[in-house]
């Protein structure tokens, strides 16, 4: 029986494992790929680590720091090991994993899920038409281009103005494709402004806001798409259809936490984040099961994602020591009208440290006031020069203001 199994060897798993290992536990990382690093191995652009290391690193460079920590602390690593299912037992958890040696049963006292997110596909955003070859998600293209040197086509169209799409647009431009067009239904790019600037605007790559793809055309291969303009409710405007010739369609239409696995285990899922409901130590509603990184919610910034791992490590330690600081009734944290998501969703412990909360504003605003309220009472407020939905915000939540509270609302005004 192991003390801790960390499922997923991306940055959040790599950050969690050594932090727990340092406390003297027997920790193993199970990773389905043949190498550690997760998404970061294909994120070859820089911009990682500015908060944690005061340096702008590339994905592989950032990953390397944590891979070294894993090796230095004696954490065990099993590669090409896919965790198929997990069941709760009296004394812990029993998982079925597909490994290079065959199917194995692995037992552990506690679990940290760090399995990240997946990309939305064409059916989730309802693009019609035929099903030819050449329709790919942006993350897949990023992988193809950066690890294999394979381009999806010479004349790609990118649907959606999210970060992955923006970054892929630059890779394709630099690799020398003949033409690129980016279309998206929003008025502005939905990805980070930084990526819009350095991936699209810097190179004058054409883009069309308030536009989407209605249908994909082509028999065996993509031959064209039917573009259509949309209004501010994203409803298609009849009569604005236009055929655009292209040989590949790249979808960058959002990421969703990969929460099916924890849901199967019985964890409650938050319909706003699409990730499991967690407390301030990132414990899910199943005791002994923790969840970190992009599985909790989509972090735009890996430095934030790995912070969840450091905090979760303390939670795992508490759990394994059987040291309970849980309150009788947890305090619920809820997003207000102008807030999209809030994590953690519950404050379950009594302790004396402050809590860091993350929330995604639902609106764009200059001179914003962030408020924590309970009923009519304002518990804390803070000014922020500028907020926008594409930037996840964080805030310290002093534990003492929570005493006797049942529910706290986070809002932006």
């Amino acid at each position, binding site marked *: 029986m192991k003390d801790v199994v960390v499922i997923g060897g991306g940055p959040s798993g790599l950050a969690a494992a050594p932090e727990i290992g340092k406390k003297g536990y027997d920790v193993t990382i199970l990773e389905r790929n043949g190498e550690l690093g997760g998404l970061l191995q294909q994120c070859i652009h820089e911009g990682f680590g*500015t908060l944690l290391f005061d340096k702008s690193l590339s994905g592989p460079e950032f990953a390397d720091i944590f891979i070294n920590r894993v090796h230095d602390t004696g954490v065990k690593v099993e590669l090409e090991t896919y965790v198929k299912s997990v069941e709760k037992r009296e004394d812990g958890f029993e998982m079925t994993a597909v490994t290079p040696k065959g199917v194995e049963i692995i037992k552990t006292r506690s679990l940290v899920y760090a399995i990240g997110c997946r990309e939305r596909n064409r059916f989730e955003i309802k693009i019609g038409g035929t099903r030819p070859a050449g329709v790919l998600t942006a993350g897949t293209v990023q992988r193809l281009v950066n690890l294999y040197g394979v381009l999806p086509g010479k004349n790609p169209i990118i649907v959606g103005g999210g970060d992955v799409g923006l970054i892929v647009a630059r890779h394709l431009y630099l690799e020398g494709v003949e033409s690129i067009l980016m279309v998206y239904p929003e008025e502005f790019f939905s990805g980070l402004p930084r990526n819009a600037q350095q991936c699209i605007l810097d190179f004058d790559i054409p883009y069309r806001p308030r536009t989407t793809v209605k249908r994909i055309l082509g028999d065996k291969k993509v031959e064209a798409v039917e573009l259509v303009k949309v209004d501010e409710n994203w409803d298609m405007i009849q009569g604005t259809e236009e055929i655009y010739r292209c040989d590949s369609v790249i979808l960058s239409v959002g990421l969703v936490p990969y929460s099916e696995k924890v849901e199967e285990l019985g964890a409650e899922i938050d319909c706003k984040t699409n990730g499991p409901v967690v407390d301030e130590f990132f414990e899910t509603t199943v005791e002994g099961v923790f969840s970190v990184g992009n599985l909790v919610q989509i972090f735009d910034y890996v430095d934030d994602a790995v912070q969840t791992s450091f905090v979760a490590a303390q939670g795992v330690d508490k759990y394994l020591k059987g040291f309970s600081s849980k309150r009788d009734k947890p305090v619920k944290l809820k997003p207000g009208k102008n807030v999209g998501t809030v994590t953690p969703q519950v404050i379950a412990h009594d302790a004396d440290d402050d809590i860091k909360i993350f929330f995604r504003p639902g609106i764009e605003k200059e001179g914003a006031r962030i408020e924590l309220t309970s009923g009519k009472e304002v518990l804390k407020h803070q000014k922020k020069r500028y907020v926008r939905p594409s930037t996840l915000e964080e805030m310290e939540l002093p534990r003492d203001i929570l005493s006797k509270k049942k529910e706290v609302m986070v809002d932006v005004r």
Partner: protein
Amino acid sequence: MSDEDREVLCVRCPKGCRLKLFIDENIVVKGQECKLGVDYGKKEARHPEREVPTTVKIKNARWPRLPVRSKKSVPLAKIDEVMEELRGLKVEAPVKKGEVIVQNVADTSVDIIAERDMEREV
């Protein structure tokens, strides 16, 4: 205030701070959430520079491509030339992280370095 004063977006990290540049003989940068923004703002005012993240072909490695980047940022206007120089290149594993792959790329006096170790796998 001078006519040249403007707002730019710091692209050094995903925070994307909106920097205010007060441009005179000296350039004063405001609005940065970390010190990297000051340097970025000063450069952006006069000579915009960007980092170039890309890949080169690699033989006998786990993947057919090795991720590389410019050690420092290069002039935005020189990026096409940098890419042209890297396109024909093919290196061979093993490669160590930080190893110089091209010196003084496209006469920018900036080196191109490997982003990761790539072991020899045949």
